[in-house]
């Protein structure tokens, strides 16, 4: 599903964010990406979201080299990827419902389908009672659940999450991780970047450890 071949990403002169990265994530797998700050976790996610291109090497997703995609193909590829960020990236002026349906609206989906699917996914994350609330009226955990709902509304093949529990307390973090586990249980490939080792242990899935932009250490066993 996801492969990287000798991927490197440099910023400026010789500043490696990633170096000689070779990894493989199978379809339907749940993988943690961990390591200290600056290890290259977010950079790898940005490469997978095509917000940036690798300086060297190839990133292959679903058999396609992401470097070879045209502008329109990049957008088509992104429709197959859901994303969740530490800072939620919700639109402050839009309600919970609008934040989620927006992802369908800008893809030209019929209004009826937007409404049905948005309600369905918000119900799934347990926010069907907060449809008209603005992001500022929600707790951190609720905001992250809205972001997860938005990531799922388009039924992606892959969900990428960058420190999704970074702003949440431990109980809410477990709640969010349960949602990711459920997403994965439905067959979606999930890649979560986090430095929270307790959470990784609790969920117990494959771990890819990065340090100074390289894979390091022995991957922890699956639980």
């Amino acid at each position, binding site marked *: 599903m996801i492969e990287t071949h000798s991927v490197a990403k440099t910023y400026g002169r010789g500043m490696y964010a990633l170096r000689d990265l070779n990894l493989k994530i199978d379809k339907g797998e749940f993988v943690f990406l961990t390591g200290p700050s600056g290890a290259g976790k977010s950079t790898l996610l940005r490469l997978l979201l095509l917000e940036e291109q690798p300086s060297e090497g190839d990133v292959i997703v679903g058999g396609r080299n992401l470097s070879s995609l045209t502008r329109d193909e990049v*957008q088509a590829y992104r429709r197959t990827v859901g*994303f969740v960020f530490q800072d939620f*990236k919700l639109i402050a002026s839009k309600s919970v419902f609008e934040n989620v349906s927006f*992802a369908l609206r800008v893809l*030209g989906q019929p209004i009826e389908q937007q409404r049905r699917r948005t309600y369905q996914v918000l119900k799934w994350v347990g926010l069907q009672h907060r449809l008209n609330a603005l992001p500022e009226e929600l707790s951190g955990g609720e905001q992250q659940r809205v972001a997860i709902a938005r990531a799922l509304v388009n039924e992606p093949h892959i969900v990428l999450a960058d420190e999704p529990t970074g702003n949440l307390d431990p109980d809410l973090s477990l709640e969010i991780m349960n949602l990711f586990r459920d997403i994965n249980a439905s067959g979606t490939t999930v890649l979560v970047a986090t430095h929270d080792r307790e959470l990784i242990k609790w969920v117990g899935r494959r771990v890819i450890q990065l340090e100074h932009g390289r894979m390091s250490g022995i991957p922890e066993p699956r639980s």
Partner: protein
Amino acid sequence: MTVVGYAFEEAWASLRRSGRSALVSIGTIAIAFATLGGFLLVSVNVQGVLDKWLQAAEMSVYLHDGATESDRAALEAFLKSKPSVAGVEYVTREHALERFRADFPELRDVASGLGENPFPAAFEVRLQTGNGGDAAADDLSREVADRPGVGDVRYDRRWLSRLVGMVTAARVAGGLVAAILMLGAAFTVAAVVRLSLYSRRDELEIMQLVGAPFSYIRGPSIVEGLLLGGIGAFLALIAIAVIYSSTSRWLGGDLAGLTGLTQVHFLGWFEIAVMLAGGVGVGAAAGVVASKAAR
């Protein structure tokens, strides 16, 4: 929802959010197009006057008092033989005096007080219009001046040609001024659209990340420019219509009488369509340029 519906909905919402900056932008577009429309209005009517004057352009060949009947007949035959001449009419001294009295009744007494008829007999020559007409008429006027019996030659088309040249120069200058104003207006529209993009930057980031098609990402900005330009041009037309209407009422028939036109015309449908299309086009082009920031 279609991309067009989405683009118009978002563009309209953005215009409403922009408030004062959108009004400034519409105002600059309106000023630019009012200038252009004003030039067009004057130009269309001046052209009508010039066409009328050019059609009526005549060469007057005055005979001196000693001219004989054979001089007159030879001159008439000579004029009629020239291809640049469309028609020749002989005006006797008496006919010239009668015409003066009819055209200027208030000066009738002046003419009567002179005793002797001061008007010379003349040939009024209507000239062919079209390519090479001016050069041929110039040659003719030189040739005629040397003929026996000819006292003076007056040729209207010389000053008319100069007038046409001046009007053309004024038209080019007006066009340049309008083009510069429009360029300024386009920059203003682009700046307003960029401000709108900046205020929507969170939405745009999400749109990029969810893989929205570029038509959805850039469409609202292009439509916003299009609306700003279209509204500006429409307001300019209304302003021109108001000025035209009030000026016509104020001057009454004087202006028409002064210019020799039966009526001073407003812009035709073609000019109106050009102005509206121009406004929409300039605005949309500015929107296209500004929307590149949304990549």
